[in-house]
């Protein structure tokens, strides 16, 4: 008799109880289920019992904590295209900085938000922790590439993850209408193409992203439905149903790439929003998970 595979939410609930584990992934192998437990302290992990999954095989793996890919501003050089100032209409995949924020991230995807009055609002999608204000949930304006240049968008709506809760996303949209014109292009920097309709990420899918720190990189989805613990500056946050990506030969992301869109590399279909990682793996949220909750419409240009 085959065992039921634990849901991403059940994995996240189990992760909430244990500070030492950073990621849980359930793998179905024939009629058995294996729970892969990742953490930086294997001794601590092995002492724990996993009574929630009585019939599952538990495997422990060494893994460093995941940190949101934020880079503190001040010491970086603006040399590459993705870090440089862009003229309008701005292709996304470029660097942004919130006013009153000492960090930079990436403006990842052009998205269309359907306002309650039915109006289409053309926005950029990034991470909540990129667009967050120092004291408020969102900053007042996003600048490109730094606050020394004019703003390009006004944060509008966010999915703010909470400590000690099971979260689904760390995302924010910002209205790009300024002075009667939209500041952004439907195209992605370097790729010079418009994204296709969003798709669901699956294991072994080849993906790419364009981000502020590592530019264009390629990788492969190694797991979906993962529960992960992300190490924010003010405390950890647990996420369920996340996508795990491994770089192809080089790291897929680095601090500053938060907010990048992750695409199916064959179709250029958006599949995720990059928001965390360590030196080996990158974590992204399925784009449909964000789209549904923020009220986004596709395609960008109806």
């Amino acid at each position, binding site marked *: 008799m085959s065992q039921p595979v634990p849901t991403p939410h059940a994995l996240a609930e189990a992760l909430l109880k244990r500070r030492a584990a950073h990621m849980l992934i359930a793998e179905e192998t024939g009629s058995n289920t294996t729970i892969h437990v990742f953490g930086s302290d294997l001794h601590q992990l092995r002492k724990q019992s996993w009574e929630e999954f009585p019939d599952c095989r538990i495997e422990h793996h060494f893994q460093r904590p995941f940190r949101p890919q934020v880079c503190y501003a001040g010491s970086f050089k603006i040399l590459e295209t993705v870090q440089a100032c862009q003229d309008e209409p701005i292709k996304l995949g470029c660097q942004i900085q919130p006013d009153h924020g000492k960090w930079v991230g990436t403006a990842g995807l052009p998205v269309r938000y359907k306002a309650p009055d039915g109006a289409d609002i053309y926005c950029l999608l990034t991470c909540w922790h990129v667009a967050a204000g120092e004291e408020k949930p969102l900053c007042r304006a996003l600048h490109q590439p730094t606050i020394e240049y004019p703003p390009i968008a006004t944060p509008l709506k966010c999915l703010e993850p909470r400590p000690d809760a099971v979260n689904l996303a760390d995302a924010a949209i910002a209205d790009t209408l300024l*002075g009667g014109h939209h500041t952004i292009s439907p195209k992605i920097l370097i790729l010079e193409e418009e994204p296709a309709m969003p798709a669901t990420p699956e294991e072994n899918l080849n993906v790419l992203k364009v981000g502020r720190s590592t530019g264009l990189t390629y990788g492969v989805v190694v797991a979906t439905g993962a529960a992960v613990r992300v190490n924010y500056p003010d405390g950890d946050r647990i996420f369920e149903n996340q996508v795990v990506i491994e770089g192809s030969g080089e790291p897929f992301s680095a601090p500053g790439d938060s907010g990048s869109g992750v695409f199916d590399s064959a179709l250029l279909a958006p599949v995720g929003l990059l928001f965390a990682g360590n030196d080996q793996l990158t974590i992204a949220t399925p784009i449909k998970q964000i789209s549904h909750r923020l009220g986004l419409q596709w395609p960008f*240009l109806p």
Partner: protein
Amino acid sequence: MTEEHITPRKLQIEVKLPPQLSDQANVLMPCLVSAAGQALQTFFAVFLECISKPPASGYNPGDRKRC
């Protein structure tokens, strides 16, 4: 009075539309919300403003030099 007797009441207003506007009345009815309960003259002012408003949405890319 029990709870089930308390029902929301919609404000019913009767208006006569000029013949050239009557065909569009259904489409533009949401604009009536802000005019409800006011004089007919005000209603037509709002009504006409709704007609003359440019579309609320539409992608309009800028071409400003920022750098």
